[in-house]
């Protein structure tokens, strides 16, 4: 085994690649980026030591193209490959190919990825490890099966239709009316095939009044497993997380300890190493939690855990990938702050339609409790081929309210993105909502309160108002006088 990674190839783009480059810089590791034709001028390309073109814009031809990525790693003479989050991060074939090609794979073993990648299998193992799971059926071939299952087990609507290989909120549909079942089933099947190359479908009961709570785990190859506390990712839109907090405000100490023990038990059973997350659905009414899935990768929201524990999770991943032992033990991990993260997505804050184009102005907040991971720079083009995440904005505080206050200022007064639309105004309107402040919200929060949230969106700032005046003058100066003289 090598003692140090000299060159790390990052098989990803945008904020995900940028985050890993941050750690490379701290550790004086050469970061090698890859890019599609659409990303030739992307932020991650310029941040890294060198960058290699891997194909055309559609993901299947570039960021999902395993051969091209392996060739790039060979060409760059890399020691190791980090997949980031998304794309090939949870693809066990790719992990195996990396290992077989002689590179260090920064992540859990291909076997574990495969095991947890199939939602049906993961559920089975969880049950074996005495981890409670949401009632449902696997390998659904027709909507008829769904109807029969509902009848037999007396499960009522709504239900969830999921792509077995899905993740990150993609390939998941909630069915509220039985008439919509067919369309949802077909959509999930088609999206599963398209985005994950697997059209297997599973179906689950929908837990109302649920909170999404997850446990961050780090483990080495020597059976040491440590949790880095929990995160709450209840604020979601169409199963896409957009606001995360750490730790959750919904758990008391007993529940929290129980949750950690359950997560570690499961990870120990599957022989996990590297960083990973065990996701649970927490039923606020019954105080029960149900296993959802294991994310066998670095998660988008890992940064807030880093803020509250002071640990560099990407750094830990690099260490354990080399076979090193975890640099800390459970008692060393202490909470020192509360933190929250919002995802700055390039979408219309009212309609959620994706927004493409050039970022003409970009200014991020600063302050003692602010952290930014940005996948873009001022002047960058947002291509239409990839997901809409631009940047991650995190704040911390001595308590939850402190973190929220810092975020309120960051979103309301400091951040400035022009040229494309982002959901920043909606995020602000969420964190100012009384239900959010009280902590009494569920995964349906956005859907249930959308009208309310949209009505409180402040569309323009003082600067916007001044720029409207500048626009008038620009047009008048270009087009000539309004009147005949």
């Amino acid at each position, binding site marked *: 085994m090598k003692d140090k990674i000299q060159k790390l190839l990052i098989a990803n783009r945008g904020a995900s690649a940028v985050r890993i480059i941050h750690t490379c810089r701290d550790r004086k590791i050469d970061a090698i980026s890859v890019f599609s034709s659409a990303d030739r001028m992307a932020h991650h390309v310029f941040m890294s030591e060198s960058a290699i073109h891997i194909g055309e814009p559609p*993901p299947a031809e570039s960021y999902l193209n395993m051969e091209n990525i392996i060739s790039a790693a060979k060409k760059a003479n890399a020691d190791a490959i980090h997949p980031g989050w998304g794309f090939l991060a949870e693809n066990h074939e790719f992990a195996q190919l990396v290992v077989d090609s002689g590179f260090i794979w920064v992540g859990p073993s291909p076997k574990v990825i495969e095991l947890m990648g199939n939602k049906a299998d993961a559920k089975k193992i969880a049950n074996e490890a005495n981890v409670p799971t949401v009632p449902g059926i696997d390998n659904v071939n027709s909507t008829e099966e769904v109807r029969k299952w509902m009848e037999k087990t007396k499960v009522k609507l709504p239900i969830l239709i999921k792509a077995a290989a899905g993740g990150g909120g*993609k390939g998941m549909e909630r069915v509220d009316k039985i008439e919509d079942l067919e369309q949802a089933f*077909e*959509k999930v099947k*088609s*999206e599963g095939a*398209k*985005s994950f190359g697997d059209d297997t479908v599973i179906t689950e009961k929908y837990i109302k009044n649920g909170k999404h709570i997850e446990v961050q785990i780090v483990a080495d190859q020597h059976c040491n497993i440590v949790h880095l506390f929990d995160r709450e990712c209840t604020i979601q839109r169409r199963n896409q997380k957009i606001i995360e907090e750490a730790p959750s405000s919904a758990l008391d100490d007993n529940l929290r300890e129980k949750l950690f023990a359950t997560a570690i038990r499961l990870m120990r059973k599957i022989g996990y190493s590297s960083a990973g997350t065990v996701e649970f659905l927490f039923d606020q009414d019954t105080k029960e939690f149900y296993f959802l899935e294991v994310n066998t990768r670095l998660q988008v929201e890992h940064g807030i855990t880093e803020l509250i524990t002071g640990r560099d999770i990407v750094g830990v991943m690099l260490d354990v990938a080399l076979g090193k032992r975890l640099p800390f033990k459970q008692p060393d991990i202490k909470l020192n702050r509360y933190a929250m993260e919002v995802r700055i997505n390039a979408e219309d804050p009212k*309609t959620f*339609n*994706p*927004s*493409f184009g050039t970022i*003409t102005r970009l200014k991020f907040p600063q302050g003692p409790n602010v952290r930014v991971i940005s996948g873009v720079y001022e002047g960058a083009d947002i291509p*239409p081929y*990839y*997901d*809409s995440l631009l940047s991650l904005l995190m704040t911390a505080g001595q308590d939850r309210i402190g973190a929220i206050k810092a975020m309120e200022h960051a979103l309301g007064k400091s951040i400035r993105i022009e040229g494309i639309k982002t959901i920043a105004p909606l995020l602000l309107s969420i964190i100012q909502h009384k239900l959010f402040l009280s902590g009494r919200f569920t995964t349906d929060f956005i859907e249930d309160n959308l009208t309310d949230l949209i009505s409180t969106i402040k569309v*323009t700032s*003082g600067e*916007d*108002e*001044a*720029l*409207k*005046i*500048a*626009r*008038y*003058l*620009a*047009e*008048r*100066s*270009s*087009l*000539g*006088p*309004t*009147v*005949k*003289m």
Partner: protein
Amino acid sequence: MERNIIFKPGMTPRELVRSALSLPGIAVTSTGMRDAGQSDFKNRIRIIDLASLAPFYNEMGLFSAECHGGARWHVGIMNRREDPFEEISILRERMPGVLLQTLVRETNMWGYRPYPKNIIEYAVDKVDIDVWRCFSFLNDIRNMRTVMETVMNKGKLFEPSISFTQVNWATNEYYLGVVKDIVELCGGVEEIILCIKDMAGVGSPKRIGNLFDAIKQKYPDLVIQYHRHITDGLALPAILAAAQNGAKIIDAEEDSLTRFYGQAPILGVKAYLEEFGISTNLNGNAVKGAVQKVRDWIGHYDWAESPFKGSDYNVTTHRMPGGAFPSSFEQAENGGFLNLMPYILEMMSLYNKVIKYFDVTPGSQITWVTCSGIINRYSLEGGIGSVKHIIELFNKFVNENNQDLNSMNEEEQDELFALFKSAPEDFRQLILGSYGKLPMGWPKDWVYKSTFGSEWEDKIKERKDLSPIDSLDDEDIELLRANLEDAIGRKSTEEELILYLMHPKDTLGYITFREKYGKTPLVIPTNEWINGFQKTEDNVEFEFQGKPYRIELVSVGAEHSGVIHTVIKCNNKIRVYQVNTERAKKIEIRTAKGPNDVGAPINGNLWRIGNAKRGALKVGDIVHKGEEIANLEAMKMENVVVSPQDGCIKEICAKLNDSVQEGQLLFIVGDCDHKA
């Protein structure tokens, strides 16, 4: 000369009337902020310029400042992109000691149609004005009732106006009858002032002196104001005659604003009246300051002046009001018939003798559109010769034969019976009584025959004698609010709703402009407002939202494919603006608008036309409401496009794999043609 300001906001109508009665000499209302601009500058003088006069007005010792109403409202939202509510609040702040005055057209308010009672009450209630001058172009005092009641209930000063003209039928007896109606309507003379509104500027000094004397004799405690335009060139002596015979308040404007059709020059009025021993109670220095201030910016409005220059004594026959002069000439110029203006004015002189009312909004517009329409029609059909012929014929009929049809031969009669055949709808409504009673009764029957053809007798039966106030049903304000909010896609403010009630279409244009350009109209100086910047480093500096701003031109690029890139520095930061020229606007993509149009819900790639089940769709295929007819991919997500109705695909407006924009027209779906 320092003096205490006598008339202030917050005084009750009764206190204002008493103060006016006990005032030695007269007081002055300045029209510099409204009618001056309307009469000679097409209402284009911007509030940013007018507000520079406010500190002088605050010291001037005026009775009031007319700064609101009339057509300033409509032109404000249409051209200056200012709304009257903003104007009031700016002026209130800068001249808190001055009574603000509006001009309101009884049931027509600040719009051009009669409004029902509930809308009048709603609007009057929300406008912060101290003095409400209200006129009826028919002198149909019944029409003022709702405005009067709402204003007086608010504790504001109501100023009913008599539309004045000088003509044989408009006798003292006639006017005293109107005054009597007014006094009865308002329950006495203690809480109102009366205005004699000489809106065309036609009152001869003797006639005016005689009329004021007659009213004063009958109503010694009535405060009377004289509003007079200067069109005929005889304003100053007429004003003196009014003041000598009991007028208490006189309208005037800054000498530097005075052109040909507005009010008399204030310094001239002051000097002239004072020479005759009548004090104007004005602070001379403040007046001079305002007159001088105007010269700072009036040069920016040369373009807005009427192309018809000079006083016009002929106004005493054609009677076009000062406020309508510039806009009428502008229309004639834009319509390419400026050369016909003398004939149109002559036509108007004759028309006035046939259909008797007062030429002021909306009557003046009806006169203008009807008469210019007739002259244009004759000009198109037979040139100037034809125009001269009809004027000669009409003149003979009206002036020589006193509208006696028997004195005209058959051919001439036929021509007269066709004279109003193309008259505008407003004209038809007017003679059917929709605006109220005409002051001298309905026109003769031949006018109806000429307007309505064979239906004329039925139409006369339809004619109403009721005031529109009594005949119009209330409108559903909440429904109108919902329409407005639908159109702008958000909640509206009360102010926006009132604008919308008066001018629905132009208010939408105004709101769109302000959403795009914000407070530009209120902060940018007039030169830059009209011309933009001319050269690099040209700039404007202003304070906005409590911070200093400086906007500067760096460069204007050349035009490529209809687009100009313009570089601007805003508070030292470089900004590049893409400006679309007219050419670019022509090649814009089609957007979905109508109910049959299906637009793209998002920006994305049109990867499927049709759906998984039935495959591709083509023109003519039958589709069902809610059926997926296309699919867009964006950010790895599929987005279904569904048919909004049952029907057939009429047109497919995009190609497979096109990158389409949000709102771009994808399909037109319509009813199927059932051909056998």
